Each structure stands twice: as structure tokens, then as C-alpha cells.
């Protein structure tokens, strides 16, 4: 199987509003693919389309080589869509038991996923007493039942505290290596996705904006060097005399130029008797590139 998820011109409307607009999407096997876009970009609708929860109005889609919603494919897919689907009057254990029975899995599977999301201690408490973070972890545990080939997670870190986010990140990061799982991770938070995802898909207003390796999104043709100096005005004047274009940003100076020009810049600043604290290549960060993509739209 070349692609775990593959869509061609996938389109979905709600009324007159085009929510997913001719989306061409490919997801590699055994990789973590981040699915990024601002709120309302069409991420959850796309996920619902991939899972067969709703039908596309145009275009085609294959998940694990089968049409969306095919029970044979669903047997190998775990998903957390929107907020976790939990029965509040039941315990965490009973909620997992429902999915275990539906998927005809061994009893040991419940213990395995409980320990993965660190909920063993609270498994026998009613879900109505769970915090938002615990509910989220239980939702992820439900998605992990049966070691799925494809794991689709929609905003999995919602409501988690920093330690919980860190744990979730580690868990997701290890899945492809540990069990060969392909992870399709949807989020509107770039910082969350860039730390775990090797590939990125960016959508905005239902349209594909970027698809490819994460590091390539951050790559830019316009290289910059960053310096931190004691007197920014003095430094900028000296740099200008040497022909370097520069701008001051939040106490730092960004200079247009490649890393090979760093020695010239350093000597220029030293000669101008400017206190130099830091000089480093400034890669245009993912966030800036991401925002630029959205602005282009």
C-alpha cells in the first residue's frame, strides 16, 4: 500500500458553504502526519469524511486502500473525533469494555491501553468525575484499542496540562516505531504538531495549502542572521554602513544574509564598539511560514 490515506478532489458542502474544497491528500504509512489549519478550516469535516461518518459530495477517498466507512478498514482504524465519546455514568473501565466488546478484542487490551494513557489508578471511577484531561486521555485510549494500523486523532491534547501534553506527545511519537501505526494528527496548534509530525498537511477554508515534510515548510529562500547587541541603534547604523539590510525585532536585530557572512557582520559590530552577545542564523520558523500561508489564502 503506497498511501494509507489518499483523497482526490474531495469535496463536501454544508448547505451552500464549501467546507472541504477539492482536497488532494496523501498520507505515508508508518509516519506521523500533522493536519493543520485554523479553527473552521475543515479539519474535522475531512476526518469525518475519511472515517465515512459523512459522505463526500464530490471526489474520491481511500483509507487503508478501501472506501471510507468500510468495516474491513474500520477494523484497523482507531480515531478520536472532536471530543471523546464517553458514557458519563459508567467507569473508565466500562467505557473501554464497550469498545473491546464491539471490536471483539482480548481483555488484556483494556489494561494495555489504560497503562499507555496512565489511567490505571482511575479506571474504576465514574467518568463524570474525570477532569477534562482525563477524559481526553480516555478518548485516546479508546482510539488505541486493538493496536490500529491507522490512528486518527482530532485535537488530542485538548484540556491536557503541560505534563499531560508532554506524555501524549511521547506516546504519539513512539507509535510508528513501537507498533507500525500511522498517525494522522489534527490540530490548530502548530507548536504541538511540529514537535511530533514528520509530515505536514495544511488546509485553510477547505483548501490544501501545503503538503510535505515538516522541515520544508520552515525552509525559506531568504536567509537571515540574528544578533543580540547592547546598543541596537549603534549596531544598525554600523551594519547599514557595511551594506547590510537589517530590522529590529523584540530586542534583537535580524540581518538579511547567509551564514557565510557571519564573520563579516561580527567584525563590523566589534569595530563599531558594539557589545555583541549572540550571533546565529535565523531560520524562518514554522509559525511564520504557517501564518504566511494562511495570509496568502
Amino acid at each position, binding site marked *: 500500500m503506497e498511501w494509507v490515506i489518499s483523497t482526490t478532489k474531495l469535496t463536501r458542502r454544508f448547505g451552500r458553504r464549501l467546507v472541504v474544497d477539492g482536497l488532494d491528500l496523501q498520507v505515508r504509512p508508518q509516519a506521523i502526519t500533522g493536519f493543520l489549519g485554523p479553527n473552521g478550516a475543515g479539519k474535522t469535516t475531512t476526518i469525518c469524511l475519511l472515517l465515512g*461518518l459523512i459522505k463526500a459530495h464530490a471526489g474520491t477517498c481511500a483509507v487503508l486502500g478501501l472506501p471510507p466507512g468500510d468495516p474491513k478498514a474500520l477494523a484497523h*482504524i482507531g480515531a478520536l473525533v472532536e*471530543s*471523546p*465519546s464517553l*458514557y458519563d*455514568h459508567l467507569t473508565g473501565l466500562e467505557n473501554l469494555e464497550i469498545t473491546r*466488546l464491539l471490536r471483539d478484542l482480548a481483555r488484556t487490551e483494556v489494561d494495555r491501553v489504560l497503562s499507555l494513557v496512565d489511567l490505571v489508578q482511575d479506571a474504576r471511577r465514574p467518568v463524570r468525575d474525570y477532569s477534562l484531561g482525563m477524559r481526553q486521555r480516555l478518548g485516546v485510549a479508546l482510539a488505541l484499542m486493538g493496536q490500529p494500523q491507522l490512528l486518527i486523532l482530532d485535537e488530542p491534547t485538548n484540556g491536557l496540562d503541560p505534563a499531560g501534553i508532554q506524555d501524549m506527545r511521547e506516546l504519539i511519537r513512539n507509535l510508528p516505531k513501537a507498533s507500525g501505526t500511522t498517525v494522522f494528527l489534527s490540530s490548530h496548534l502548530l507548536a504541538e504538531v511540529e514537535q511530533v509530525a514528520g509530515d505536514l498537511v495544511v488546509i485553510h477554508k477547505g483548501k490544501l495549502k501545503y503538503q510535505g515534510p515538516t522541515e520544508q515548510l520552515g525552509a525559506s529562500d531568504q536567509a537571515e542572521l540574528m544578533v543580540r547587541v547592547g546598543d541596537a541603534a549603534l549596531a544598525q547604523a554600523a551594519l547599514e554602513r557595511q551594506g547590510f539590510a537589517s530590522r529590529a525585532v523584540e530586542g534583537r536585530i535580524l540581518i538579511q544574509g547567509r551564514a557565510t557572512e557571519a564573520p563579516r557582520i561580527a567584525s563590523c559590530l566589534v569595530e563599531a564598539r558594539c557589545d555583541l552577545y549572540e550571533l546565529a542564523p535565523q531560520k524562518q520558523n514554522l509559525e511564520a511560514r504557517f501564518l504566511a500561508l494562511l495570509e496568502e489564502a
Partner: protein
Amino acid sequence: MSALGSCFRAERVKWRKSWMLLTALLAPLCQAGFLFIIFWFAESRIRMFKPGFQFWLELNFVTWNLMLMPIATALICDLSWEQEREARAWNLLLIQPMSRRTHYLVKAMGHLVLVLMALAVLAFLLLLGGFILQANPGLLMGPLPLAMFSRFLAYSILASVGVTAFHTWLSMRLPGIWMGLVTAILGSWLALRLVGVSSLVPVLPWGLSAQMAVVFERWRVLPWSQVPIGLLSAAGMVALGSLDFSRRWRSAGLKE
């Protein structure tokens, strides 16, 4: 078949500590308890109606089929769908490796099992209450008419099927406890009015249960010949409900 079995076992887990289970236990308890009190403490009035074990059974089975069973069924079905809506469960259940039709069939089966569970509780309470009432000689209870008890019970089981099939669909399509309760009471009343007047009665969801009222006229027998029509009508309702659920299950609580 195994998907149906797995899905039903999962459905049973949802009953734990649920309002549906409580309804299934409380409905027969309320009815049998209320009628027991009337029998015991209003002996002089009961004596006007040819008292005895037969009257105890007739009154209870008719009350059950005309009132409590439709009401309990409406409550059970609505609470059951509401449980799924509150849990936003369809995002999870419909991505399990089984067809949507299976989910609907299991819902209908689950509701029927709960209604039959309530009927089993009622049957037990009728026997228990009847034996206690034998201690009151003024009620002339006499021996338990076991054959009649079995007939009434079997007929009540069959009469539950149509009502459950209808309310499973209604509560999915038009959620709300009041909607279910009003429909149950009006439906039962309408079916009762049509008994002996229209030949369409067995096709109505409450048709078979309404005909239970004939047992008060002791020379008449239960209309067993209408049971197959009632069951066919119920099967049709389940089939239509499952199609409706498979095609448009937004009403079941999922926002697209």
C-alpha cells in the same frame, strides 16, 4: 451474527447504573404495588368485581398492556437514545467495524429485552402478590390459574414487540420524553377505541396490547390470530427504522 452478538454485549454494559434499567424495574413494581394496595385495603369494593386470582391477573395484565407497558417502553427508548446523544457516542460507535444497521437492530433488541425484563418482574410480583392476597379470605383468591397466567404472559410478550419497535424509531427520530409519553398514551387510547371497529388494529403498534382489554369479557378469548400480523408490522417498523437510521442518523445526535 457475531457482530450483532458483540454489539449486544456492549449494549448491555451501557445498561449498568442507567435510568432505563431503573425504569424497567420500577414500572412493574409501581403497578403491582398500587393494585396490591387497592386489593388489600379496598376489599369491599373489589368484592363487587368477582374477586379471585383471575381478577388479580386480569386487572394487572390489562393495566400493564394498556398503560404501563407503553409508558415504560416510551421512557426506556427515549432514555436509551438520550444516553447515546449525551455521550456523543455515534462518533465512536459508527467507526467500529460493523454496519449501521447492526447498531439500530441492537438498539431495538436491547429495548425489547428491557421491556421483557420489566414484564418478568411484573410476572414475579403478580405471583408473589397473589399468594400474599390469599391471606385475605374476603378476596376469595382461590388457586393460581396457571394456564391463564401463562397465556396472559405469552400474549403480553408478543404485544410488547410492536410498541417497542415503534418507540425505538420514534425516540430516534423525534427525541424528547414528552413526545414519547404523549404518543404512547394517545396511541394506546386510540387503539383501544378502534378495537372491534377497525380491522387495522393489529397493524398499529399498540394494536395487540389494546386487545388485551377483551379479557374482562370472560366469554371472549385473546385474539391470537392477529399476532402474526402484529409481529409482521413490528418487523416492518424495525426495517424502516434501520433504513432511516442508516441513511439519516443526524437525528440520533451527531452534528455533521
